[in-house]
């Protein structure tokens, strides 16, 4: 079996050009099954395009992406039912109740025992009392939990998260991170997390990929990144990369 089939996500020389603008510039990485990886980068770094290609939403200009052994986007319908995603930039229909929304998506994903699955998720994500309330009438934190419930409905083997705790208060954000850690541990899921929140990445991720102008600037475990840049936090490392300061590793070279 080749390495791309063994990996949960395999990205190989991926390039995306929009009308002459290079959004993603020949990046490659592989995520082993059960891993949790942070994808960091400033605005326009290419994170969202990379995630969109992994989900089969955007066609790459060149290169290959495979998820659970299926070439994306060509073979996306082989694996979409085994994946899911959450993003604050995509909403659920506001006039539908939480229960209606979750049951529609459960049916779309072919979930068995829909009622039981929704009840379990609602209990786990503290949503039970909101199940029959219109989604549009929930607070930002409650909506994020509903989106997370939607993302976990089909017990995805690959979970893509774009800013999962954006606009949440620290307490709710911490609560969401704990749920993600639990889910990953219980289901051996592969999680790719795009975030601007360095505390979140430090806490959740065992590996960090830093992108800038469509390229991978660095890719390592957090401890080695901190050591290489001579920094105390990932935020400082991120700023070094974003502002073009190579850190101590460059000075050493």
């Amino acid at each position, binding site marked *: 079996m080749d390495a791309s089939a063994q990996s949960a996500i395999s990205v190989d020389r991926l390039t995306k050009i*929009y009308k002459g603008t290079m959004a993603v510039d020949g990046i490659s990485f592989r995520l082993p099954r059960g891993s949790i990886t942070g994808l960091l980068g400033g605005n326009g770094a290419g994170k969202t395009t990379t995630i969109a290609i992994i989900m089969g939403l*955007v066609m790459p200009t060149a290169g290959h992406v495979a998820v659970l052994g299926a070439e994306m986007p*060509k073979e996306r319908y082989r694996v979409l039912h085994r994946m899911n995603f959450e993003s604050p930039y995509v909403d659920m229909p506001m006039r539908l109740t939480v229960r209606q929304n979750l049951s529609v998506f459960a049916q779309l994903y072919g979930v068995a025992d829909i009622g039981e699955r929704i009840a379990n998720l609602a209990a786990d994500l503290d949503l039970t009392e909101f199940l029959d309330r219109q989604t549009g009438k929930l607070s930002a934190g409650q909506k994020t939990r509903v989106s997370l419930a939607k993302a976990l409905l089909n017990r995805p083997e690959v979970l893509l998260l774009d800013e999962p705790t954006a606009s949440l208060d620290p307490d709710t954000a911490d609560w969401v991170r704990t749920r993600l850690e639990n889910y990953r541990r219980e289901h051996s899921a592969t999680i790719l997390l795009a975030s601007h929140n360095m505390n979140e990445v430090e806490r959740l991720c065992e590996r960090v990929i830093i992108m800038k102008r469509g390229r991978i600037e660095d890719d390592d475990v957090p401890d080695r990144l901190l050591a290489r840049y001579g920094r105390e936090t990932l935020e400082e490392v991120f700023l070094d990369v974003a502002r073009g300061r190579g850190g101590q590793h460059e000075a050493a070279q």
Partner: protein
Amino acid sequence: MNKADIGLGFSLNRVGAMVRRYWYLLRSSWPRILDLVYWPTVQMLMWGFLQLYVSQNAGFFARAGGVFIGSVLLWDILFRGQLGFSISFLEEMYAHNLGNIMMSPLRPVEFIVSLMIMSIVRLSIGMIPVTFLAIAFFGFNLWSLGFALVAFFINLILTSWAIGIFVAGLLLRNGMGAESLAWTIMFLFLPLTCVYYPVSVLPHWLQYFSWALPPTYVFEGMRALLIDHVFRTDLMLEALGFNIVLFAGASFAFLKLLASARKHGSLLQTGE
């Protein structure tokens, strides 16, 4: 083009999920339901009273009883059928839910079938009460057309779906910038398909365009039935032939526009 895009792996369960989603939305909002009924009612009343007036003053219109009301009811099947399809699609864009839909296992063909079903549901809610009002106000019974009504309906709804599918493709590719087309594109058909007058009224050169549009055959067929009391099977078969071509062309265009949207990243930006 991906095989799944053209229907392999079709699931009625997923179609049912989408229909349920639109039904929940429709029943949660009385203005949406009212909107389905009020305009067809206004149209029917206006044309009905106009017909009543001219029939009392002209011999031809006295013989051609119900032509105006029949025309407006059939036009509403065409117009509302397309609108019912397109509005359900637009609801996903208004709700910023298209990303959730496009990244789910739902196939494009299943999405389209669910929109067709909702087009029939919305049309039924809007039009069935209006047909009974036409009986009450003007003694015009659309249902008495029987088999002819079935033939008219099939041809009109096929055209409305074909246009709806094409507009959905434009919306996917161009975002909300193409929204106004969803509301207005069918009005291009209003003069060309000769809803209220025979094709012979058009300039000779324009008649070629008119006869290339399936609804033209339906409206001519309706006039033949109401004025001459003849059901023109030939017209219905010709309309069906043109509809098959139109539907296939619209479906092909939709898949091409979807592929183009994936290439240009338009599915990430479905705003204006």
